[in-house]
């Protein structure tokens, strides 16, 4: 039974990644259409050709470089073989236990205990830990967290999650730019029907606001289930639930200053991490991760 659901998960992630790419692709083309309508219909063809080329490039570059973009956005550096010996040893153990190729290891500067995995398939996978995690976690905890990340890798969660983070993260930036340009553009003047123009502008604004929110909500809804699943499959590798449980407890009890927390991590990257880097207190729709207490409880009852 486990085997089947596992493969289902892989298939689902591949399909979802594909759908996401198609959605983002059409989003840009529609956006191009709206922009050309708002600015000047005589530029229609130029804008459309530009937007098709742009969205094609955008999607392709994101697909093949999503892991690099994710790593660059948190300013991660490759882990050194000599300095992070325990990190390498633990990752190698988990690679052997899962039968996956050894992922490339990265370290990001942060006092907070956290980690994420990225890449488009197990062969190109990377695992990134914070310096705080490497400092504060012991070997069992480290293996527990790596095993959790390894399950994200083998499930192809990494492909979907990184694509979501990169594609949507960029969309929100571009949507903001679009809004700002509307503000400064010559809205009132022109020789066209004012009503149509206002309608298009309103549509554009609505679009720019709603699209990233909707896309993010989609990613949030699934990422919670993903975390539970990765916890369980991770434990199958270590055969030691207390390892991950005590790592999660350390995450829960640590106090990191507000300033420390805010820098470096972009909001769109949050679903990738093992625990929410923003430590949002509000539960419900906007929560990217299941509550730590619930995860710890489940691990302890294994």
């Amino acid at each position, binding site marked *: 039974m486990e*085997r089947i659901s596992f493969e289902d998960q892989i298939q689902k992630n591949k399909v979802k990644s594909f759908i996401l790419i198609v959605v983002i692709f059409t989003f840009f083309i529609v956006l191009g259409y709206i922009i050309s309508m708002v600015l000047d219909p005589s530029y229609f063809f130029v804008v459309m050709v530009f937007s098709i080329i742009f969205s094609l490039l955008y999607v392709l570059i994101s697909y093949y470089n999503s892991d690099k973009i994710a790593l660059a956005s948190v300013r991660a550096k490759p882990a050194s073989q000599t300095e992070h*010996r325990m990190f390498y*040893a633990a990752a*190698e*153990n*988990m690679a*052997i*236990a*899962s*039968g996956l190729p050894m992922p490339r290891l990265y370290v990001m500067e942060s006092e907070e205990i956290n980690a994420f995995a990225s890449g488009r398939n197990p062969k190109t996978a990377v695992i990134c830990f914070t310096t705080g995690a490497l400092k504060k976690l012991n070997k069992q905890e480290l293996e527990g967290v790596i095993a959790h990340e390894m399950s994200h890798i083998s499930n192809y969660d990494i492909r979907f999650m990184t694509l979501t983070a990169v594609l949507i993260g960029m969309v929100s930036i571009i949507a903001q730019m679009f809004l700002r340009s509307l503000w400064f553009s010559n809205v009132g003047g022109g020789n066209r029907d004012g009503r149509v123009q206002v309608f298009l502008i309103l549509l554009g604004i609505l679009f720019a606001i709603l699209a990233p929110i909707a896309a993010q909500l989609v990613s949030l809804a699934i990422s919670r289930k993903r975390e539970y699943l990765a916890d369980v499959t991770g434990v*199958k*590798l270590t*055969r030691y639930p207390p390892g991950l449980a005590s790592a999660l407890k350390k995450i829960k009890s640590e106090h990191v200053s507000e300033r420390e927390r805010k820098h470096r991590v972009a909001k769109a990257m949050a679903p990738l991490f093992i625990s929410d880097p923003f430590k949002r207190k509000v539960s419900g729709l906007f929560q990217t991760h299941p509550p730590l207490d619930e995860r710890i409880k489940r691990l302890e009852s294994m």
Partner: protein
Amino acid sequence: MVLWLIIIIVLLVLIALMFLFYYNRFVTLENRIDNSLSQIDVQLKKRADLVPNLIASVKGYAKHEKEIMTDVTRARQALIKAPTLEKRMKAGAELEKFIGRLFAIAENYPQLRANENFLQLQNELANIEDRIAYARQHYNDSILSYNNLTKRVPGMWFASMYGRTAKKYLEIPAEERAVPKVGF
């Protein structure tokens, strides 16, 4: 008439696809099993490769512990010479036992314990021991999914057609499973 023909053809194609699917599934799982075995082998060899360095560093501080050193060397020789993987695994377990004993003896030599080189070897050998344990676990996991396929319906029928039978798990050698005695 034509309708019946289409239905029959579709059914035949489906059955052929199932045959292909199960054949590939068996091959994939068998490859995974082979792969995990070779992973164990690689780690066993790595361990054997580290032994001469270990002996050399111990010799510098504990010359008269000859007995354990010959034991370790002998176990290493047995491992290198073993012709089959099964025998190599057995020899590997033997070597692991002696290396463990060597480290226990090393506890009596503070200078040796403080030696950088020795500590590094100890660390590396402990890592290898972990890796072997995880490789064995992966092997058994692979066997489990293979056996599940051969024993459950409908994989069971295909297994008998392709001449595939359930495989054996790796057992922990008896002496390893016994709780070590602690003497005072």
